[in-house]
């Protein structure tokens, strides 16, 4: 009780409220700019943040982290470019809604998803964080390997063409092997180019595959993103649609929460898993990927519910679930809040004040969305002649801003051309991107597991968790063929 009153007093101190407000606004701006995700945003404000009090600094950084994810969903919906990999699933139904002129509805869905998902996630975690941290400790390299494989399988099998989806994931995984390998530091596919020595840089690839490709696609037409030339449906229509699908939203929040507490399984996996499950449970799964509001609901709710789980993992185990969480972890250590199982006891006031502030942030971003959605949606009415150069310049600058390096701009342009060719030949860039993001997790855990078992592959099926995860993977690949086979067999019977 004493802790609760201490937390409430701390959150409503004027400096913490200003940190909350400015962090949220800055986070949305950062998220909206393609290429500048939460990681780049936190890195940019680092010199300023380290001068603040630890609680105020963590509230600023925490709200920036949370709101940049929401900001990323805005670009995913409006210009088909996810601000970060976490928003990859939102693109699939958000942008088609926009093309139908329903940008306002899509933004309403995403803001409500961020509010509901974030609030459910935070409230659940405030009470269950210490227990969840204990469960996550049971995961070893083999289990992490399967978690990553499941996330990749979901995105591959949910592609329009499964074969091309799997190939796209494979190419993404192959790209993740560029650079020094994690076991003995052997150089692979670098050709002496220092820009890729630490691996294929993620942000320039993301900018190239989505923003540059999208600009090229838009350049082909002299119209605007909204094909009907107007914005039909408003923010509140999106809110109403959201609450009509409340059970789907709660299920997605539970998925996001579960994925969040698994160490090193990031928000992108949560969004994709929730999207895929929502599709499999829907009466008309064929409408997913073509502007089904439930697709946006599932991905945004899960992603935002995942973020608190990700934070618990970072706080309790010191294992970040994403690039953003890794920077958050570094900032916490720099501020003197050392993560570990004891942080919930020793720094309880700081941790729970941060949690309470993040609950407030969930409502704040909904208000931002409510007041700014109409203006933001107007982007879809601008002629492509204005949008194309603007998207190219902003995204390439976003790519340059991460390391202040022109090599990153060149990588973005190269991947822009690759993404354009992929689109023309029917390959989706999303599985490739996920392959690149999760490649390191797959390979390092695969190697670690083999080293632990002295080269025996039995380790991948030695625990019950591994067996369940393996079975789920098999089911994912078999499922798309079972339905038609069942119908054919029933047809033959008749």
């Amino acid at each position, binding site marked *: 009780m004493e802790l609760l009153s201490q937390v409430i007093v701390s959150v409503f101190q004027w400096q913490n409220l200003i940190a909350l407000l400015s962090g949220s606004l800055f986070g949305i701006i950062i998220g909206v700019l393609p290429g500048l995700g939460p990681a780049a945003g936190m890195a940019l404000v680092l010199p300023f943040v380290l001068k603040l009090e630890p609680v105020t600094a963590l509230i600023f950084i925490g709200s920036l982290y949370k709101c940049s994810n929401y900001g990323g969903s805005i670009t995913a919906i409006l210009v088909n470019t996810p601000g970060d990999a976490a928003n990859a699933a939102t693109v699939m139904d958000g942008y088609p809604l926009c093309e139908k002129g329903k940008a306002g509805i899509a933004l309403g869905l995403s803001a409500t998803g961020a509010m509901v998902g974030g609030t459910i996630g935070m409230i659940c975690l405030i009470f269950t964080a210490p227990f969840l941290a204990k469960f996550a400790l049971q995961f070893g390299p083999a289990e992490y390997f399967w978690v990553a494989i499941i996330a990749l399988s979901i995105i591959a099998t949910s592609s329009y063409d499964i074969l091309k989806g799997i190939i796209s994931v494979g190419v993404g995984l192959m790209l993740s*092997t560029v650079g020094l390998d994690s076991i003995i530091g052997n150089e692979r596919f670098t050709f002496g180019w220092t820009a890729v020595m630490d691996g294929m840089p993620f942000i320039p690839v993301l900018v190239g595959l989505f923003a540059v490709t999208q*600009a090229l696609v838009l*350049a*082909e037409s002299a119209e605007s993103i909204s094909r009907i030339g107007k914005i039909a449906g408003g923010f509140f229509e999106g809110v109403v649609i959201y609450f009509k699908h409340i059970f789907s939203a709660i299920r997605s929040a539970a998925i996001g929460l579960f994925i969040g507490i698994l160490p090193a399984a990031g928000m992108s996996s949560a969004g994709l898993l929730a999207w895929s499950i929502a599709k499999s449970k829907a009466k008309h799964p064929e409408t997913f990927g073509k502007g089904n509001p439930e697709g946006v609901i599932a991905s945004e709710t899960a992603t935002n519910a995942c973020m608190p789980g990700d934070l618990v993992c970072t706080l309790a185990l010191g294992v970040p679930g994403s690039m953003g969480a890794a920077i958050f972890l570094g900032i916490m250590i720099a501020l003197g809040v050392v993560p570990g199982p004891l942080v919930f006891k020793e720094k309880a006031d700081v941790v729970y004040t941060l949690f309470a502030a993040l609950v407030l942030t969930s409502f704040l971003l909904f208000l931002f969305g409510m007041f700014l959605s109409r203006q933001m949606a107007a982007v879809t009415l601008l002629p492509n*002649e*204005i949008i194309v150069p603007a998207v190219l310049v902003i995204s390439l600058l976003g790519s340059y801003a991460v390391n202040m390096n*022109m090599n990153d701009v060149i990588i973005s342009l190269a991947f822009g051309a690759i993404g354009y060719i992929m689109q023309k030949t029917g390959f989706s860039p999303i599985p490739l991107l996920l392959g690149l993001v999760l490649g390191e997790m797959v390979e390092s855990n695969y190697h670690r597991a083999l080293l632990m078992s002295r080269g025996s592959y039995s380790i991948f099926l030695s625990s019950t968790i591994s067996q369940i995860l393996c079975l789920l993977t098999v089911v994912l690949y078999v499922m798309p063929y079972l339905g038609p086979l069942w119908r054919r067999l029933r047809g033959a019977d008749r």
Partner: protein
Amino acid sequence: MRFGKLLNKDIVAGVVLILFSCWVLQEARNFAAAAQRFRGVSPALFPTMLAAGIILLASLMILRGLRKGRDWRFTFDIRQKNSYLAIGLVAGTALYALVLEFLGFLTATTLYTLTFIVWMKGAKPLKALIISGVAVGAIYFVFHTLMFVPFPAGEILSFVLGE
């Protein structure tokens, strides 16, 4: 079999992927030779497995393409602006990236956006200059002033300022 039947997206993509995977396999052999295998783990293991998998899947895609037949037609028409717009956009953006450090952000970006607005929209140069000036100013304010991203000042401005 007529050659035209091979103009299928799956066949073309499949062949490119097989060639790419063969190159990966060749490169991976060099890692294997350079590094010691330790408890079944080597730097070549993962790329080799992936390349083998992609060769298998790309072969399936080629077979599917052969069954489907031709589905690709070249529609490049030199008289249509949209036919060479994508090529021009990639080339123009590559040129922009190359001259960005020399000309500096403000000059290079204004020229770049101005050119594309005039070319794509057929707008009057003065109107295009105002639009690109406002856009470049806004981008400069957000990235440079708000987020402290140091943009390339350019050789010309540095020379004028005597730096």
